[in-house]
């Protein structure tokens, strides 16, 4: 351990400055790479390795309950996936869910952000109360909303009956359309706060002076919103939208807990389809093909996101 001072230049020596500086920089950059390496390696092991494994698996017939029969099948799994009407059905439902949930969550999140951006008495309470649902695990929130819509002990049924509204005695989870209501409400409950926070952060970067000069020019509140707030908020909006679109595309916990894809197949989504192929059919080759398809779709969205961030000059510059 006594040898330590010899490694790298010590700051006190009087060696010629430029050379020292260069080797000092080189050693610092070496240390820098060493510092970054473990995190990058860990992420690569957990994400990139499975991705490669999936690509290999997807070209094979590998069913866990038929050991010893594994073999190369080329594109057969992909062919089967692309000709399976259930795959397309699930993909379509996933798309519809993405559009509806993201639209609603974005609209609600924007309103929420605008509200919390104002100064008012209950502001702290609102901020805390929306953050709690965000922190609850998705599966728990799905369970909670499932019970909320339970026909006996649930609140929804009770309220509809008490107010003599239509829809009392309705079995929400037995309707191919209405089963989506609790699913989307639960998803909104959990995810709107996140959008609101992103938008709020965006709102706070808009300088007040712009609004003041607009007011002097005679702009109404709405005009200011359309011509100042929204354009300046655009980057935050894009980030929030893509973030949410992506996680909506991968929705699984909520569906698994609330409906298991039912009634029939009417709430089945593509992540559930993949999970089923892997863990119920134990058909790992086929599951891998679906996983590759999902990964490609997700990465396309993610690339767009990273591009946007870079263009905007976020912390990465």
């Amino acid at each position, binding site marked *: 351990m006594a040898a330590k001072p010899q490694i790298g230049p010590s700051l006190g020596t009087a060696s010629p400055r430029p050379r020292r500086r260069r080797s000092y920089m080189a050693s610092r950059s070496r240390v820098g790479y060493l510092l970054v390496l473990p995190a990058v390696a860990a992420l690569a092991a957990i994400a990139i390795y499975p991705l490669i494994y999936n690509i290999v698996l997807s070209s094979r017939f590998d069913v866990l309950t038929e050991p010893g029969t594994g073999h190369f099948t080329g594109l057969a799994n992909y062919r089967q996936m692309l000709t399976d009407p259930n795959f397309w059905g699930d993909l379509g439902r996933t798309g519809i869910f993405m559009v509806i949930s993201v639209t609603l969550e974005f609209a609600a999140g924007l309103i929420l952000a605008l509200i919390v951006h104002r100064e008012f008495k209950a502001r702290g309470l*609102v901020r805390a109360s929306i953050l709690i649902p965000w922190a609850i695990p998705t599966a728990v929130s799905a369970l909670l909303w499932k019970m909320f819509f339970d026909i006996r002990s649930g609140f929804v*049924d009770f309220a509809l009956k008490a107010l003599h509204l239509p829809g009392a005695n309705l079995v929400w989870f037995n309707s191919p359309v209405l089963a989506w209501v609790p699913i989307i409400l639960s998803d909104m409950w959990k995810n709107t706060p996140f959008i609101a926070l*992103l938008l709020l952060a965006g709102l706070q970067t808009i300088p007040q002076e712009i609004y003041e000069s607009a007011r002097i020019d005679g702009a109404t509140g709405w005009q200011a919103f359309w011509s100042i707030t929204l354009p300046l908020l655009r980057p935050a909006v894009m980030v929030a939208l893509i973030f949410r679109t992506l996680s909506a595309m991968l929705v699984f916990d909520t569906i698994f807990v609330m409906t298991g894809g039912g009634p029939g197949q009417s709430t089945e989504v593509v992540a559930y389809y993949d999970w089923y192929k892997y863990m119920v059919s134990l058909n790992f080759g086929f599951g891998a093909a679906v996983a590759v398809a999902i990964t490609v779709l997700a990465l396309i969205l993610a690339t767009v996101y990273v591009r946007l961030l870079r263009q905007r000059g976020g*912390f990465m510059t």
Partner: protein
Amino acid sequence: MRQRMGRTGFNALVAIIILYSLFPFYWVFKSSVESSIALNRQTSSLWPTNWTFVHYEAIFAVENFLRPLLNSMFVAGMATLISVVLGSMAAYGLSRMPIKGKVPILGFILLVSFFPQIAMVGPLFLVFRHLHWLNTYQSLIFPYLILSLPITTWILTAFFSQIPADIEEAAMMDGATITQTITRVFAPIAMPGIFTAAILGFLLSWNDFLFALSFIQTPNMDTVPLALVNFRNAYYVHYGQIYAGVVIASLPIALIVLFLQKRIESGLTAGSVKG
């Protein structure tokens, strides 16, 4: 007049938001103290009809709910610890050291956090099976890094970049070694950022359901969300216990949020929106 209407509308909106966010919690709590008989009847009141704590007793005495609570804490805690250590190292390197390829590295970390969890389930299952890791803590701790490490690294990189480098340079000029500079000068300033990153990493790991569902099959190893979903077994659906379990599972989260609200908010936005 118009302004007053505006204010009423605003207040109504605020009330709706608070109700939508918090009322489901009240309902779960109310149901958790109802008897099983009352739960199986048509609900007749906004208040508990006859208070009972049998469901709380049952989830601890019969279902051993303490075990999943400890499991979740341990697994999420370990994943957070590893994430914070690796994330701090990486963030220090990215924000302080003259390395090339900063943007691609950060881009990679960001991209990885978008990797579909579902696509990792199959390969990881096969790998863990091979290693005899299924039903172990490590089968969750390692995959959870994918949930917590990217956000920890972002937050810390953003945070470290804001700490002026002069402070460390001054310390080094005074003859401190790199290690001394980091532990004595840098770390105390960086602590709040590290703490913020840790909370978020913890919450994101705590949130997981899919990995636990796929890699854990023995009840002893269940995490909280998995245990709650498994309260229904072959013949019974224990509504009261599910309600009580949801309350128990939500309480610590709610407390964390109430006490650390500011940090969570800043952490959540640090990575994606500069601010």
